[in-house]
């Protein structure tokens, strides 16, 4: 039996305005979703061209969830997004050319070729770089929120995890600690229903991952992760609550991973009907239709956004391809930090 609250879809334009988004914001959200998908589509092309070493991971189907949550964050908030959350990086303002440079292992990627894929983050944008061991970033984000609580700053930390990683102890320990201390942290579960090839019924025995929240002493909510406005509203509510001292919330964004675990995986184990059903609620198409119906997005506006994104990505690709490969002579640099390395926006 479900314990978590099941969020309703956004009912009206009025409700969206109440939640803090005007027409221009809404078009911006759409643009960010388009960039998010565009970056990953271009990534596929780069991979096929043999320009991406290693493997390649995307978050197709998760664009509304990632952009929706990130849109609700304040400038001073921080987060640790994962490999299905490109939309968080885009919404926070990372330049796509640096993402392409990262994909290709170039010197101008945020990790300068030292790590690949979406294992990157710009701390200047309030983001913390993920590791592969999911959900290790949960306790780290809890620690960020602990710092805010100790300093009594009105800031919130966002921690992402998948329904697969919800099985690991880091989830339990992070939520236990955050719950006992009512820390200003919001846990976001990207439930895309497949942990590599493992279905949800082999990952957890409750109806929802968010049902667990009650056991940790805070609210759990399940939201349709293809509905960017519902995700935004729930994230905003949870972030506002955390900021006001109300403690954590667990938001579960339900989606379907629309591609394999990574580029090498054809996801043969996902029933075809499942893909067909979820393709009907494609996050981008869904929001595009909503914008045309509710805020009268015109053909011209849509074309302008579309062509702007296309140009942004074309330029970004060109710039990234011009980025040099990293210099192996620098390999040993920076294993240990120097005192002056602490001069980051956060360490000050």
């Amino acid at each position: 039996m479900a314990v978590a609250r099941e969020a309703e879809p956004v009912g009206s334009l009025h409700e969206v305005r109440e939640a803090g988004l005007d027409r221009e914001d809404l078009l911006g959200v759409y643009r960010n979703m388009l960039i998010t998908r565009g970056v990953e589509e271009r990534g596929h092309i780069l991979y096929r061209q043999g320009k991406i070493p290693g493997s390649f991971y995307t978050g197709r189907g998760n664009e509304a969830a990632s952009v929706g949550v990130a849109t609700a964050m304040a400038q001073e908030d921080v987060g640790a997004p994962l490999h299905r959350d490109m939309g968080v990086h885009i919404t926070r303002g990372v330049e796509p050319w640096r993402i392409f440079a990262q994909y290709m292992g170039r010197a101008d990627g945020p990790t300068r070729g030292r790590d690949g894929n979406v294992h990157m983050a710009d701390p200047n944008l309030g983001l913390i770089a993920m590791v592969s061991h999911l959900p290790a970033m949960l306790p780290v984000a809890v620690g960020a929120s602990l710092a805010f609580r100790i300093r009594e700053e009105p800031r919130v930390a966002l921690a992402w995890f998948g329904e697969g990683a919800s099985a690991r102890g880091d989830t339990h320990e992070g939520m236990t600690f955050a719950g006992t201390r009512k820390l200003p942290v919001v846990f976001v579960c990207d439930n895309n229903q497949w942990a590599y090839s493992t279905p949800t019924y082999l990952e957890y025995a409750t109806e929802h991952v968010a049902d667990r929240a009650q056991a940790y002493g805070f609210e759990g909510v399940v939201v349709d992760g293809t509905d960017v406005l519902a995700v935004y509203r729930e994230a905003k509510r949870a972030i506002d609550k955390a900021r006001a001292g109300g403690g954590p919330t667990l938001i579960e964004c339900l989606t379907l991973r629309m591609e394999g675990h990574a580029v090498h995986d054809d996801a043969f184990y996902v029933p075809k009907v499942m893909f067909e059903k979820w393709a009907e609620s494609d996050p981008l198409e869904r929001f595009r239709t909503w914008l045309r119906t509710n805020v009268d997005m015109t053909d011209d506006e849509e074309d302008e956004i579309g062509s702007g994104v296309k140009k942004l990505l074309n330029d970004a690709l060109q710039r990234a391809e011009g980025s040099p490969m990293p210099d192996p002579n620098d390999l040993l640099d920076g294993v240990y930090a120097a005192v002056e390395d602490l001069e980051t926006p956060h360490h000050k």
Partner: protein
Amino acid sequence: MAELTYLQAISDALRIEMRRDKRVFLIGEDVGVYGGAFKVSLGFQEEFGPWRVIDAPLAETAIVGACTGASMMGLRPVAEMQFADFVSCAWDHLVTVAAKQRWRAGTPVPIVVRLPSGGGFSGGPFHSQNPESTFAHIPGLKCVCPATPEDAKGLLISSIEDPNPVLFFEHKHLYRRIKGDVPEERYTVPIGKARTHRLGTDVSVITWGAMVYTAEEAAQQVENDGVSVEILDLRSVMPWDKAAVLDSVRKTSKVLVLHEDNRTGGFGAEIAATIAEEAFEDLDAPVKRIAAPDTPVPFSPPLEKAFIPQVDDVVAGLRDLAAY
């Protein structure tokens, strides 16, 4: 100068840093109301409050992970593992996150994890280990192992100042057994500089932590036989003072590497290999290692005595080397 125990020196360092730097906080199991399992932080919560002396749930992953996150936001966390053995539950957060974050993502992680380590009082397999070599193997981590009260204070202050994740191994058997003069003011001891514990000319002992005292007793015994022993206390195994080791080896030409950790893959192996590579021509005898056998740490006193290197073992080793 005041005479302090090794434990009091650690408390003193932590108190000084928490008084002078509001960014420093302590988190661990039972560190607040109870003052820590060994009472290192006794009275701290009264002075600094519950948000700077944080009683955490029994969750080492959350403790070290939270320290990492808080350090990225500008704080200087000090975590206490109740026993060094339990750091295995936080392995991922030290090795996977904290150690690599600076190198790959450019974000320093200035945290200190305090680890009451070592055996000698029937703690058994899970309350006696010396896991320093395990972490010394991981690029990005520092491993500090003080032997004296003066070093314990100065090295803990250096560790808190350090912009990297530092594992601070506090030998439990030294906590109340070892006393020494400790300057009352704040001072630092640089991480990575060895200390010559005893000057000698015939054999060098390279060691750290509680084994410094085992080596000292053994050195006094063989002195009567006319064997002059030099003891080098490394103070930290990562970084380790290679230059000081090689200098001492060149001076005595015979070397005994001594540690309380298991023999195979213990940090002594790295030291021995380095001596073989860089000072082979200076040696008059093969490098000798004395370490714990490759078993878990046993509980019962006669078994534990057979496990932890004893003065007699070191005496025998020194005599072998002297006679070579």
